[in-house]
């Protein structure tokens, strides 16, 4: 057991830090705000040019063959600057990693290099109006038709679908399967497909997620992802774990902890003195979460898929973010409720205050994460 970063890891951190300092600019955020989007194509292209989109993939598929600690370092340094990473994360971690884990060779050769070059982005659609936490209660239907598939139904709360090229969809391909956990298949669907319409749903954070209506959407047979009717088994074994481990918010937490520390340090106002110990405890928990996060990344590098730990790091960092933002508002008072980048801490305290549920609920509610930890991690029995 040893916790030293290698020289390669250190150099990589320095490189990402320099890039983030130079490239994550106020203009970038102003541009995204104007368009009501959490995605910036120009910034994404720069990440791709550096080889950082899909850096953890094998070189033959356009990646750099880097380990997950590199990915953790990248996320940490980028989030420390509030860089917009959502789409590269959905493309690489949700869609790309799933293709690597259970996709066909043809799919790997087609999708991965394009994602890595920044030419193609993907999003992930699991949730339906009637299938939220009960995610396997999928009704969107997939019917085989002459080697193709026809999709009919509805998905909801898909981040980024309005601008993405492909959506990875979970659909019910066998209506007579022995349980709802069987007979689900995954498809990679071009967003330009006839019969697929997108309606944006605005979040409290100001950006939009989407509802997608599938009406007789024809999907070529080669875009079936993974074995037919084994979709649920694949996503619970791979995709959902990648998703949870990948959305650890450590970099964000470290930044907010540092910012709030600066606000309090040296201030002798009664209110500053009131909050310094509360912040100190949070910062200790954040550093502890950082090392738990590195451990989860390392476990993936050992070829393991640590289900319970992935849920732990997700629910822990989201809870810490909620507590940090709440404390930040208490430290700032009314100024912590002001909208806009002119507000203290670039308006981030207020922004997270009104959008924290994206982090808490996205990728599975805290309640579901705790079920997973209890049942998969601690071996406690299911209720039924």
């Amino acid at each position: 057991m040893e916790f030293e970063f290698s020289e390669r890891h250190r150099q990589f951190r320095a490189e990402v830090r320099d890039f983030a300092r130079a490239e994550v600019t106020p203009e970038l955020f102003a541009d995204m705000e104007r368009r009501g989007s959490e995605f910036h194509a120009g910034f994404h292209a720069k990440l791709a040019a550096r080889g950082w989109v899909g850096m953890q993939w094998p070189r033959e598929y356009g990646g750099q063959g880097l380990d997950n600690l590199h990915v953790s370092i990248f996320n940490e340094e980028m989030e420390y600057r509030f860089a917009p990473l959502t789409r590269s994360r959905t493309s690489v971690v949700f869609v790309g990693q799933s293709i690597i884990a259970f996709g066909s060779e043809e799919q790997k050769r087609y999708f991965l290099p394009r994602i890595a070059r920044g030419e193609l982005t993907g999003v992930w659609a699991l949730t339906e109006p009637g299938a939220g936490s009960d995610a396997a209660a999928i009704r969107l239907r997939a019917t085989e038709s002459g080697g193709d598939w026809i999709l009919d139904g509805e998905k909801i709360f898909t981040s980024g679908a309005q601008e993405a090229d492909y959506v990875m969809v979970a659909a019910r391909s066998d209506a007579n399967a022995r349980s709802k956990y069987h007979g689900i298949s995954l498809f990679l669907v071009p967003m330009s497909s006839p019969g697929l319409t997108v309606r944006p749903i605005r979040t409290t954070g100001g950006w939009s997620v989407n509802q997608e209506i599938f009406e007789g959407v024809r999907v070529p047979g080669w875009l079936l992802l993974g074995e037919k009717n084994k979709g649920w088994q694949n996503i619970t074994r791979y995709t959902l774990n990648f998703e949870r481990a990948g959305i650890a918010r450590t970099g964000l937490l470290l930044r907010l902890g540092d910012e709030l520390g600066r606000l309090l340090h040296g201030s002798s106002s009664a209110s500053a003195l009131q909050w310094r110990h509360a912040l100190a405890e949070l910062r200790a928990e954040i550093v502890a979460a950082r090392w738990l996060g590195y451990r989860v990344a390392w476990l993936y590098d050992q070829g393991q898929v640590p289900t319970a730990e992935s849920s732990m790091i997700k629910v822990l960092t989201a809870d810490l973010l909620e507590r940090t933002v709440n404390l930040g508002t208490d430290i700032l008072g009314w100024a912590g409720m002001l909208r806009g980048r002119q507000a203290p801490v670039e308006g981030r305290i207020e922004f997270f205050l009104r959008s924290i549920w994206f982090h808490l609920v996205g990728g599975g509610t805290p309640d579901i994460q705790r079920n997973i930890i209890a049942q998969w991690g601690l071996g406690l029995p299911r209720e039924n």
Partner: protein
Amino acid sequence: MNFELNDEQRMLTDSARRFFEREFPLKRLREFEVRGWDAFLPVYQQMGELGWLGIGVPEDAGGAGGSWLDLELFAEEAGRALVPTLQITSIALAGQALVAMGTSAQRQHRLAELLAGRRVIAPALLNDSHASREPTSGLRATASDGRVVLDGKLRHVDAFAIAAELLVAARADDGSVTLHLLDRSADGISASETTLTSLERRHDVELRGVACSADATLPGDWGAWLRIADGAKIIAAGWAVGATRAALERAVAYAKERYQFDRPIGSFQAVQHRLADAAILTEQATAITRFAAWQHGEHGHHDREAAMAKLVAGRAMRLVSNAAVLTHGGYGFMEEFDIQLYVRRAKQYEYLIEDPTLQRELIAAQDCEDGIRI
């Protein structure tokens, strides 16, 4: 980076776990609660014979070698068995002070016995009920005929009854603070016994004109002592991490076997979620404590990470042992059930060496960017 125990660490923790299961099961802990040190010292001396009391003490000083992380991993096993924290008191604090601050003459006739578990030195540094990082010693040192005469009061001294010597800090007339080793049976020392929640005994001690020879003064300065306290805090955090994990495992086992409403209570989400949170706290505390121990061993003293480990591990112990008691319902606080043994030590572990308020202050007082530290 490697989060897995190496072969030596696995051998150490496996053999420590087997040893404590055999030699210090909770039944022995209950005897210790009633009979005091007599019920533990034979085990402590065996720990000495096995070389475990010398882990983290350099071999050229007579120790067993091994890294600070090795010692922390061993502490997790001791904490899992709720082994009394005498090793922290007498070795991680007093023994390390001898190594780092003492003269070779001071080490020579003490250290070997200390590491064998045949001698105990009891640090006595509390002037009231909260630890302090400031050298505001309640003891006054007066020089007289080449000797030092000490006067004052000390509180909550661990292991007083079995200590050969006390390690005290005293303030001289010129304001300087130095550490002294004091024969516990010296004239002028009186003590009264108190009992903690854990049923461990502590002593309030009064010194009246106690003379100690000048060669019992440790030459190192107060800053050196703080570095030792910081290292020992990480070991105390390791103790708490081990105890926390054991409390969690007991609660999970009980939730699987206890039936209500015709099903195991562990199938109810209310119970599952409480234990899931307990599991997160346990992993979080493990992560920071192991890192802090490794950092202390490899890169020297870092008071911030030591404070963070102590704070997070103590908090985990308090919250998880409480969750474990709640899982046991009414049985949770019945003396005949074992889970109360953990919760009755939670606050004590949180206060070992330095209390949580002081850890928060240590973290808050530094103008520090965690984001760029690493």
